[in-house]
């Protein structure tokens, strides 16, 4: 670990601003989806990103995959810029697994052909592809005869396994999972999480795992980043976040995990009402309108940049 730590993902000042037109004559509004993010992910580690709907998780994922050029900042994946990279080399470097199992597989393609696609693009022959598909199906725990089916003949969990098989068939270094279990039953979610953990070790993957549920990333991630309105408001090692969450928003996320403990009742949500609006980011600390600890300082002055972006992080006030 010392000295030679190799970072496969390096983002410096990464931003994404969308222009959104409200009506024909209204002027375009700026949506700050990702706001000046800097972070690094070490080779072979797993970064969990957690945050509410609309905080910019998917936008960040799409930028990491090279699907969306950054409005500002630099992003180096595997030491290089994805934009100048050969598409085949890019595919061997980084692969996605998406949230919606219904729309992540081409409905007109048989499962076997879907899984083989990344390999076909690399120029591998049909016979070799067929063998690789059979091997991948086994890796993700699906029966070989699934290869001849169409997506609408599969359950959600099975489709997600197919999506994972497709991503891993080219043996990529990085896997970006954008809420891969949010659309699944909890029992199926557990299957997929266990599968990802196994495959991560077996394929020596660097993993970016996105979710809105803090409890879900605990099993997978080495580091956890809590995202709020386009920024990481807390970013630390897994054990630290769960043992001693320092940002009030992290504490709220942790409290809203419903554990199967009857008698506890529903958690007191320390979050204020209202949903964050990326077209209108509050001045000062961006979390202050919903923060139970907010003071005059928070309303006026942005917290210092760092692992925990909160004025009271150090003192742990109110925790």
């Amino acid at each position, binding site marked *: 670990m010392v000295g030679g730590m190799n970072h496969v993902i390096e983002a410096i000042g990464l931003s994404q601003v969308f222009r959104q037109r409200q009506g024909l004559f209204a002027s375009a509004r700026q949506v700050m989806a990702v706001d000046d993010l800097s972070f690094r992910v070490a080779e072979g580690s797993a970064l969990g990103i957690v945050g509410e709907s609309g905080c910019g998780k998917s936008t960040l994922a799409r930028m990491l995959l090279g699907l969306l050029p950054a409005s500002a900042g630099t992003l180096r994946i595997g030491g290089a810029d994805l934009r100048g990279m050969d598409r085949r080399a890019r595919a061997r470097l980084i692969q996605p697994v998406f949230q919606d199992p219904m*729309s992540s597989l*081409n409905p007109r393609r048989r499962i076997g052909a879907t899984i083989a696609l990344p390999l076909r693009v690399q120029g591998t022959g049909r016979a070799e592809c067929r063998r690789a598909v059979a091997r991948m199906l086994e890796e993700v725990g699906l029966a070989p005869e699934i290869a001849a089916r169409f997506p609408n003949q599969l359950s959600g969990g099975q489709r997600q396994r197919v999506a994972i098989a497709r991503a891993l068939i080219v043996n990529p270094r990085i896997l970006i999972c954008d809420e891969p279990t949010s659309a699944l039953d909890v029992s199926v979610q557990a299957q997929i999480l266990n599968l990802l953990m196994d495959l991560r070790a077996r394929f020596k993957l660097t993993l970016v795992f996105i979710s809105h549920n803090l409890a879900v990333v605990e099993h997978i991630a080495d580091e956890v980043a809590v995202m709020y309105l386009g920024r990481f408001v807390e970013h630390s090692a897994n054990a630290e976040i769960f043992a001693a969450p320092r940002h009030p928003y992290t504490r709220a996320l942790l409290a809203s995990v419903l554990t199967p403990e009857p008698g506890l009742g529903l958690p007191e949500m320390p979050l204020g009402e209202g949903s964050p609006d990326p077209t209108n980011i509050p001045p000062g600390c961006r979390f202050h309108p919903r923060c139970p600890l907010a003071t005059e300082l928070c309303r006026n002055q942005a917290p210092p940049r760092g692992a925990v972006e909160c004025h009271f992080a150090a003192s742990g006030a109110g925790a």
Partner: protein
Amino acid sequence: MRRAALSLGAAIVAFAAILAIFAPLLMPHDPFAQDLTHRYTPPFWLPGGSSAHWLGTDGLGRDYLSRLILGARISMLIGVSTVILSGIIGTTLGVLGGYFGGRTDAVVMFIISCRLAIPVILVALTTVFMVGSGLWVVVLTIGLLLWERFAIVARAATRQVSGLDYIAAAWAAGCSRTRVILGEILPNIAHHLLVIATIDMAIAILLEAALSFLGLGVPPPLPSWGLMISEGKDYMFFKPWVIEIPGIALLILVLGINLLGDGLRDRLGARTEQ
């Protein structure tokens, strides 16, 4: 009920296709052979009709059934060729606009708007009038004018499909843009295009009939159904069957194509929504 309509449409179109393909084998007489001693022989069910000419003869004594069968070939040929031509133009424009968006899309929308500003019949008439009539002139003229429905539908469907995750996954798999379009987008919008193809085919066939009726379509002695109606129009009141027979043939074919299109839309739509 819907199934019945689809089957009926398919049967009609299949029948017309068989007539068109095997016309030389199916025609009982030479459709161009004149026999001035047997002009306007009525069809067999009218007094004076005979089994020598099931549907009678026209003003030059040519066998009407044979001409009708050859006419089916011409109608189908024109329908299919124009749809292929306009389908290629429209789908290319629509898919490019829908997939790339931005400036490409603006250009495509502008071209579509320009096309929509052109009055089809008027331009077709003028073109054929100036270039001279002929089968391929008609195909080219109609084909170059009728692509806008393909473009609009292909563009809308492409925009819808290209936002889906499997397109992003194919891109991440390293597919080239051509491969994304041909392998992922086209197969998933094909069912929309098939429906447009049937609509445009019916329109093309009717347009050809209209041009031929005006004497600007397929040149005689080729027996286009429109031309047959035109040639018979002077005798409309004395020998109505002269225009009734090609008229009904035209009606049935267009109806069949439309039934097929509607049926396909329901079937394919239901299947993809599953």
